[in-house]
């Protein structure tokens, strides 16, 4: 039997939630970044899945968006990790709990 769109959506939802888990439950900044990356990957999976299961248009829009979002994710990762390093330099920690200078 051939899989329906639902299957992929569920999988990407799972991936997304796992990313969310990492973002919400881990204290280490890098874990948070990994989680964000995973959520982005899930989003890409969604794009591709929807593109694949939708009636075809001339330009593969979903693929395009996936490509762009991958590029943007790369940029995001680079800047984010640079931020982590900079933060570590200042506070000698990457624990996001301790980074609460903006507390009201």
């Amino acid at each position, binding site marked *: *039997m*051939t*899989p*329906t*769109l639902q299957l*992929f*959506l*569920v*999988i990407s*939802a*799972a*991936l*997304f*939630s*796992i*990313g*969310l*888990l*990492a973002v*919400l*439950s881990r204290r*280490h900044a*890098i*874990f948070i970044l*990994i989680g964000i*990356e*995973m959520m982005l*990957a899930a989003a*890409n*999976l969604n794009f*591709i*899945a929807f593109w694949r*299961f939708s*009636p*075809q248009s001339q*330009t*593969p829009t*979903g*693929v*395009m968006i*996936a*490509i*762009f979002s*991958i*590029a*943007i994710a*790369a*940029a995001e*990762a*680079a*800047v984010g*990790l*640079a931020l*982590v*390093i*900079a933060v*570590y330099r200042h506070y*000698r*920690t990457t*624990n996001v709990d301790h980074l609460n200078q903006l507390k009201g």
Partner: protein
Amino acid sequence: MSSAAVVIIAILTLPAALAAATLQKLMHATLSFAVAVVGVAAFFFLLGAEFVGLVLVFVYIGAVAVLIVFTILLTRRDVGKDRAANWGGAFLAVAVFGGLTWAILKTQSVAVVAPHIRAVTVKRIGEALMTNYVWPLQCVGLLLTAALIGALVLVMEEKR
């Protein structure tokens, strides 16, 4: 494209992702993240977007994973001290998953099978990139440059 393949890949991918989210050692987490990315790429292959899959592997394993690893190295002193995970977050994540799944299964419009399509070749993607998506392409290029410079500036040793 058969459900079996999908399920197999899912079985490979999701645990890896879970490990990436939960493992104590950052290094292991990163590597399992890489594995998860490979799984996602496999999904892309399965869905007929080979190019995107390759790009995903290329970018995430070749660049992002290595970057993360470097960061781990540079912030080493902080690694390993494990802290109590916050269970609220975990619960929330589970809740989101439940909600999403419920919503997906509830909507019948997505319970469709894939139509037969002609393979999206690199040539087609290239043409699309150079015609309809040329401005987005330029913008992304600009963005990447900006990110590069910004990252450099951020990690530059501030002189004092």
